[in-house]
């Protein structure tokens, strides 16, 4: 017995030595590195499209959200369901119960390919992980649309974007200007200092503020709450102490705006310092009703789902193929044009206030 175990240990040591040698060898000879791997990029768009082709009926369209039973995706997928059924096709929703189960999402794409559905609308948990499976699906004749969260452009036909960064940035300034009567000091309460989407929006806000009609508005500072409720709460407190003349706060993050509203509603600034930004109706309902917040915005997830549904059906009907410049009709939502990299944008965000907030449940 002892003989075999010692040989085994010796063998293990030998294996280790061989592996180390291999590593060193491979390092010396070079090999395939990131620089060698030239990737052929580009959109998956191919084939001709006829804008006047008839809308096909009886298609089977599947929605694959990042996570099932998440209120945001339930709202958007129900919007998709209504649109799909309105177009005379059948709808189904599948997906994982975790928002980070990428392998689960891959196997759902594979299953849908197997079931020979006509179109998949998917919100990708990861830009790369779904690629092989989605390419396989497209090869098997499935139309692939991403919504809310994109993959790499060559892994889908069209991406339905919730709103353009430019629209989100500019409209938040316009909303704030309206609330403070185009005059006074304002501040921004962002998420992390490194958050790419936040910084893009803030750049558009600053650009919008250069316009002459906003000459009396002064952006005094940008604070960072790191998308942490407690930190955002304290940052709001700090902003108001440092800038006693502050008239308004823009918080382009759902965590930040909720924390700021929570602080304002319990302070003497309630109703005096205006607050707007990006939030969800469920989070903000109480603060709109008690007068802390006049209006804030976000895209309407139900419309996002509906547009994803219309896009999928238009692709499957041959009205579009995903090339830049093609146009298609999305029912009563009007006409949409495909932009660069096969992206369709839902358009201006929806503004929520006292008059309409009860119509939204997400």
């Amino acid at each position, binding site marked *: 017995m002892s003989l075999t*175990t010692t040989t085994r240990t010796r063998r293990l040591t030998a294996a280790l030595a061989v*592996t180390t040698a291999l590593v060193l060898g491979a390092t010396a000879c070079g090999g395939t590195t990131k620089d060698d791997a030239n990737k052929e990029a580009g959109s998956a768009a191919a084939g001709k499209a006829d804008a006047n082709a008839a809308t096909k009926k009886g298609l089977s369209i599947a929605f694959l959200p990042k996570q099932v039973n998440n209120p945001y995706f339930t709202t958007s997928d129900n919007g998709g369901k209504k649109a799909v059924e309105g177009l005379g096709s059948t709808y189904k929703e599948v997906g994982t119960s975790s928002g980070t189960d990428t392998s689960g999402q891959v*196997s759902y794409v594979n299953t849908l390919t197997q079931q020979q559905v006509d179109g998949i609308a998917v919100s990708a948990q990861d830009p790369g992980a779904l690629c092989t499976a989605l390419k396989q699906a497209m090869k098997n004749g499935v139309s692939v649309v991403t919504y809310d969260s994109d993959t790499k452009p060559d892994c889908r036909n069209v991406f339905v974007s919730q709103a353009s960064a430019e629209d989100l940035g500019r409209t938040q300034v316009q909303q704030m200007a309206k609330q403070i009567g185009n005059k006074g000091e304002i501040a921004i309460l962002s998420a992390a200092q490194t958050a790419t989407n936040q910084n893009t929006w803030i750049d558009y806000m600053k650009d919008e503020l250069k316009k002459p009609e906003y000459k009396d508005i002064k952006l005094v500072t940008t604070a960072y709450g790191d998308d942490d409720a407690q930190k955002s709460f304290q940052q709001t407190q700090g902003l108001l102490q440092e800038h006693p003349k502050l008239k308004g706060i823009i918080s382009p993050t759902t965590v930040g705006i909720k924390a700021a509203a929570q602080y304002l509603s319990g302070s003497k600034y309630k109703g005096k310092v205006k607050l707007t930004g990006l939030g969800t109706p469920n989070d903000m309902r109480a603060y709109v009703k008690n007068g802390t917040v006049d209006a804030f915005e976000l895209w309407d997830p139900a419309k996002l789902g509906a547009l994803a549904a219309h896009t999928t059906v238009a692709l499957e009907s041959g009205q579009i193929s995903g090339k830049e410049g093609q146009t298609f009709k999305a029912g009563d939502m009007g006409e949409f044009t495909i932009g660069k990299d096969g992206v369709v944008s839902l358009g201006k965000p929806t503004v929520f206030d006292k008059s309409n907030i009860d119509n939204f449940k997400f």
Partner: protein
Amino acid sequence: MTDITSPKPTARRGLAGAVRWDTAVGVLFVLLLLFSFSFVDNFGNALNVSFLIGNTLPIALIALPMTMLVISGEVDLSVGSTVGLSSAVMGALWNEGMAIETIIPLCLLLGVVCGLINGLLVTRLGLPSLAVTIGTMAAYRGIAQIILGSDSVTDFPSQYLDFGAGRIGDTFIPYAALPFVVLLGIAVVVLHATPVGRSLFAIGASEEAARFAGIRVKRLKLSMFVTTGVLSALTGVFWTLHYASARYDNATGLELSVIAAVLLGGIDFDGGKGTLGGAIAGVFLLGTLQNVMSLVNVSAQSQILVTGVLLVFSVLAPRVGRQIAQARARKKTVAAPPSSPAPATA
């Protein structure tokens, strides 16, 4: 004394011995396959079977050393985190511009280190492996997150991605299944036809007795933990290429799938009993069940429920069966002296 080193004392136990659990799982797997081929739409084509195998491979790969560990009375819960760590390191080094031919062996070395840490803590400090590997499960995942953050790296060279996700021509066999078959062959021989395998069964049945019999228990266990670490790291490489995505949270919860499949395959959690055939049948039974449930539109939540019920049943059934058998044996041998006492069970 002979009973201790004999791998399957159950074989001689009358009625319960005739219907061995791992054989039953194998039969169940074949029945499920026959049923699915005949009645489930879209199941039987080559593409779907290749999806099924590809999705099950990570579990199957780790099930090989896990079966041996559990047979020797230990367990490793850090395997999922080791997969994630190997994936994160692979992504980070690739971003640094290192060659993939260098990265892959480095990842395997990392697996050796992970396994050594587990194994040394268990064998040198005498800590229970359940506690040690719960700790390293958190630690390895934490290191993975520090290394790669919330990034995902996807731009690996296409020939490697094709190996991870592609299949041989139009057959149902994924490329990555070939190395697995080789590893499976090695594992079967080692566990069921060599002194090393017999020692593992002996340790699982009674560590004390195994030590007295001259088996180097600690050394053998250590090498099992290292093997588990290496195969987990290899799975990390495969996972990254299969899903074209290196992320720190890859394979979260994989350890549970592996342990569920191994237990379903009839490996006794108390050690000392089981076969690799049973474990692999358990792995592919669960994998096929999941594939079929997806094809017939069973929701994700119900799938988890079905797997859970099956697991509880698979842990319970052999024990209940054994107790019934023991009760019968006692009745029969009331007059005669007991022939062969059953090893310690519930």
